[in-house]
Structure formats: structure tokens, C-alpha cells
């Protein structure tokens, strides 16, 4: 009887005796993510489930990521198959208004310039010793686009998924803090005060409906491996613009996106097991989130009658970076109204990051790096 009681008590202590320093560090990191999400309001929709997932997976002997573990099931069925990020893309398409971009299509090129950060980050990652496919996954952080970073990481470097996701979303949530000083340093007083005319070129409903179909076909023919990405975004946008599947559109932008965000966040947190996450590679990924700022210099390169501040909106953090541009522009010229122009560049940045990833995947196939 006595030995049975001792054994029973030992069972209660098993978790404690198996608790290592790594577990404690990761539980603290998970708690920090929760604090950032709840206390500071940085991307709470993702940081809350990621932080909690990181805590769950670092409880010794709980086995949530072991074979038959509940998080392992979600991870294998949703992340390894790339289904979760693709479902999120349908929601993004349903939520994105591409009208500003269609009204002023030249601005879409600023969305391309904003993607140069991807390729600069890729080169930095290679310089730091990441292998080729890991560098591709890390490079996508430079797009300032969380879902695309998750998609590419789950495809090429699933072991870096946690670090890449946290870095990408941290970078996105810090846009209001890191963009203003960069805009300030890289533009002159005169440039900041440039007033841009109102572009009013209304777009017909037919154009709005045909656009997602044409983009899917044209972009997918050039970059076939990116078809899942482009196709899902444009499917969501077609549902929005067609106006005939309101229920599906609402489901995509609310229910589906919410459920998948929860499961995806938990799965990302679940990849943050101490033995995998506390590696020099992970720390380098997180450091690169700051390094990519240099790549963003490229999106400020514009001139003439265009206020160069709107170049800063050519990234994927939508619509946050456009709002930052508007606020900065108004600081220097109260009469300047840059929001619509910045929204065009921002929508271009959203499409641009997806296109950049699609182009990258196709170039990798062409080079024989992926099958």
C-alpha cells in the first residue's frame, strides 16, 4: 500500500522531474508572445494561439506533438499539406479591395519594388550559412507578409516555421514603429510636402470581376508553381467582387479565416519545441527580421510628381503601412492627402508579395532545386 502511494506521488512529480531549462525558456517565450498579443496588441489573432501553442508543446510528457497528439494531427493535416495557409489566402482575397490599385495601375510597380526586401533577405540568409531552401523560406520575411511566409516555410523548411512566422508577424506589427524613421531619413523636406492629385478613374464592375480571373491565368502561366497562392487569393477576390455568393464571401472572410487562424497559430506554436527552436539558426532568423529593413529602401525610390513617402506602402502589411504613410505625409503638409495613393501601393504590395513568392517557386523549379 505504501509503495503504491509513493508510486502514485512519483507520477505526479514526473512532469516536474522532466522539466528542463529549454522547456522553461520556451514557456517564457510563449508567455512573452501572449503578453505582446494581449498586452501590447501586436497581431493578437496570431500571437495569442502561437504563444499558447508554444506553452502547450513545451509541457514535458504532454505529447501534443507526438504521434497521435492533437497538435500533431492539426500540423500534419493542415500545415504539412499547406491547406491552412491556402485557406487563409481565400479570406485575404475576400477582404482585399483592389479598386484603388485598378484606379491607378502604374502604382502597382511600387508593390514590386517593395518585394526587393525578399531577395536581399535571401542573400543575407545565404551569407549566414542557411542552406538554399531554408534561405528561400527566410527570405519571404522580407515581404512583410505572414501567410506567404508560412506557406513557403511549410513547403521548404517546416523546421523553421515557428521562427519564420514569429519573425514575419513581429516585423508586420512593428511597421508603425519602424517605417516613420526610415521615411524621415530617406526623403527630403521638400519631397515630403509634395501634394499628389486625386486620381479618379472609376472602374466598371465587369473589370473588377474579370480582373481576378485574368490575374490568375496570366500570373499562373508565367509562374505555375505559385498557382495555389495566386489562385486562392483571386478566388476570394472574385467571390467578393461578383456579389453573387455573399454567404461564401462572408464565410471566407470570417468563419473559415477565424478557424484556420486559430488552428494555424496553435500549429506554429507547436513547432516551437525547445529542442528545435533554441538553435542558432532560429536566432538568426529572428535577427534577419530587422536586417530586411535595408531592403525596404528600395520601395522609397520614386520621384517626379509622386510623393516618395507612398513608396513605403509598397509592402504587404495591409492597410497598416498605407495609414502610416498618410499620417507621416500629414505631419509635413496638412493639405496633403496620400491615403488613396498609399492604398494603391499597399494593394500592389499585397499582390506583389504573392507574385514574388510564385516567381521564386517557379525559378527554383527551373533551376532544378525543387521537383
Amino acid at each position, binding site marked *: 500500500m505504501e509503495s503504491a502511494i509513493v508510486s502514485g506521488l512519483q507520477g505526479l512529480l514526473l512532469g516536474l522531474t522532466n522539466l528542463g531549462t529549454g522547456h522553461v525558456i520556451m514557456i517564457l517565450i510563449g508567455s512573452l508572445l501572449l503578453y505582446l498579443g494581449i498586452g501590447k496588441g501586436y497581431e493578437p489573432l496570431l500571437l495569442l494561439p502561437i504563444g499558447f501553442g508554444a506553452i502547450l508543446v513545451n509541457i514535458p510528457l504532454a505529447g501534443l506533438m507526438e504521434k497521435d497528439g492533437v497538435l500533431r494531427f492539426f500540423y500534419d493535416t493542415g500545415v504539412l499539406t499547406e491547406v491552412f495557409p491556402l485557406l487563409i489566402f481565400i479570406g485575404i482575397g475576400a477582404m482585399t479591395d483592389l479598386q484603388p*490599385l*485598378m484606379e491607378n*495601375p*502604374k502604382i*502597382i*510597380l511600387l*508593390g*514590386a519594388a517593395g*518585394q*526587393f526586401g*525578399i*531577395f*536581399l533577405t*535571401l*542573400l543575407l540568409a*545565404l551569407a549566414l550559412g542557411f542552406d*538554399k531552401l531554408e*534561405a*528561400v523560406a527566410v527570405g519571404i520575411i522580407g515581404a512583410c507578409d505572414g501567410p506567404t511566409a508560412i506557406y513557403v516555410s511549410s513547403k521548404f523548411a517546416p523546421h523553421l516555421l515557428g521562427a519564420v512566422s514569429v519573425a514575419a508577424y513581429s516585423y508586420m506589427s512593428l511597421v508603425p514603429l519602424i517605417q516613420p524613421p526610415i521615411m524621415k531619413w530617406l526623403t527630403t523636406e521638400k519631397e515630403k510636402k509634395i501634394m499628389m492629385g486625386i486620381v479618379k*478613374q*472609376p*472602374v*466598371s*464592375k*465587369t*473589370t473588377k470581376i*474579370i*480582373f481576378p480571373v*485574368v*490575374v490568375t491565368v*496570366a*500570373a499562373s502561366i*508565367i*509562374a505555375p508553381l505559385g498557382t495555389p497562392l495566386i489562385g486562392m487569393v483571386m478566388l476570394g477576390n472574385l467571390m467578393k467582387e461578383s456579389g453573387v455568393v455573399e454567404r461564401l464571401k462572408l464565410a471566407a472572410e470570417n468563419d473559415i479565416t477565424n478557424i484556420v487562424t486559430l488552428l494555424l497559430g496553435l500549429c506554429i506554436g507547436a513547432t516551437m519545441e525547445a529542442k528545435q527552436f533554441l538553435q542558432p539558426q532560429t536566432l538568426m532568423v529572428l535577427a534577419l527580421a530587422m536586417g530586411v529593413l535595408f531592403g525596404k529602401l528600395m520601395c522609397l525610390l520614386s520621384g517626379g510628381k509622386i510623393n516618395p513617402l507612398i513608396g513605403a506602402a509598397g509592402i504587404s502589411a495591409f492597410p497598416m503601412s498605407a495609414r502610416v504613410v498618410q499620417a507621416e505625409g500629414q505631419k509635413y503638409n496638412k493639405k496633403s492627402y496620400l491615403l488613396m495613393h498609399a492604398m494603391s501601393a499597399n494593394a*500592389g504590395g499585397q*499582390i*506583389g508579395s504573392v*507574385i*514574388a513568392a*510564385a*516567381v*521564386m517557386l*517557379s*525559378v*527554383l523549379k527551373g*533551376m532544378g*532545386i525543387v521537383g
Partner: protein
Amino acid sequence: MDTWTFGWTLALIGMGGTMLVLWCLSLLVLLLKKIFPYRPEQSASQKG
């Protein structure tokens, strides 16, 4: 293929390719707007 050949090739073709695709898309938007121009009565009829 060595790492740097890979990196620079992907960076150059990737940047150029992205720029090219987005430029094509901007042309397609202009073309669509020419083929299906906006008509004010369209919005009026939508408003009912």
C-alpha cells in the same frame, strides 16, 4: 550550383520576374478598363 550563383541568380531573376509580372498586370488592368469602361449610369442603376 554553388550557393552564391544560386543566390544571385534567384535574386536577379526573381526581382526581374516579379517586376515583369506586375508590369504585365498593370497593362492588363489598363486593357480591361479600355474594353469595359466605367459608365456612370452603371453606378446609378446599382444604387437603384
